[in-house]
């Protein structure tokens, strides 16, 4: 048997003063840094292989 009681508080009862204020929420700006590779799978794969070669891992 459940015996726990749940107390309800008004938000006003909590002191929220002194904290940061949020003025805006947004999705992260895409690709601040990443250079996006697009095309067909084969084209993307070719570009990735070029990059691997440029970086000396292939």
């Amino acid at each position, binding site marked *: 048997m459940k015996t726990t009681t749940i107390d309800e508080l008004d938000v006003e009862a909590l002191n929220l003063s*002194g904290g940061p204020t949020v003025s805006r*929420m947004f999705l*992260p700006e895409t690709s601040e*840094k990443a*250079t996006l590779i697009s095309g067909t799978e084969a084209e*993307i*794969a070719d570009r990735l*292989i070029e990059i*691997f070669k440029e970086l000396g891992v292939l």
Partner: protein
Amino acid sequence: MNQDIFVIIEHLRGQVADISFVMLAAARGLAQWSGGKVIAVLLGHNADGLSGNLNCDQVLYLDHPLLADFTSDAYQKVLFGLIGEKQPRAVLFGHTTIGADVASILSARLDLPMISSGRTFASDGKFTCQICGGKIMAEGELPGSTVLVTMVPGGYKPEQGQSAQNPQVLSLPAPILEDLKVVLKQYIEPEVADIDISREPLLISVGRGIQTQDNISIAEELAEALGGVVSASRPVIDQGWLPTSRLVGKSGKAVKPKVYLAVGISGAPEHVEAITGSETIIAINTDINAPIFNLAKYGTTADLFDLVPVLTQKIRDAK
């Protein structure tokens, strides 16, 4: 309250962590707005040599044998006194195991506001921070009092927080550290199992996007063709699809490969903190808004199941 920005320097086994340099870079912009100085706070024992390349106006150095290694208890005691006395405009901590631990307790004990997962500060002092593991950003105003901020990587490059000039170091007496509840007795290096991913130059890292254990073979085949090693984010390890030794992140290993190929990994802060030392990060993720793209140098939104087998085959053909 003064207008200085304190940066709590994180270091482990004689090395300053990259997040410390990221924070120093962030602090520089914030100090320009507040009109104060950038002060690096270094806690340690015989560790003043670590201050060498910190890009700051001054280092406050507190030395004590019990500060040789991090314990939450000792750090709290020292920083409680220091922040309470100096009342800087802001105190930056890493959003790391260490920083999140100490900052949250100090926020409660000093009754100071705290911003979690801070990323950047604008020239008007506005902050941005990550919420929901980086899937949403929030922008806001710093509160008027001293504020504690835990900072995630990605907003600044570690090099921006480094300097060739030695900063001025001011040694402060550490408080008496007695009655500590936790004392570090021994540092135990994690066992290196099959492979030490922290030393591998090429990591093909798989995340939840890989969906099933059977699909791990897609990454293994690519790794084999490229001559790399497969590592993973936590959900993959938690499922038991790869051994714990392959875990990249806060609960696993920090890695610094030449190339880190993140396949179906979103880029949560606990993962990202361990890959910032990579020379080049490449991300394959169908979600253009995934935070990993903020860190990656190259990226594609192709479906990993379509792209990776084609890539593997082309690499094999080219050999």
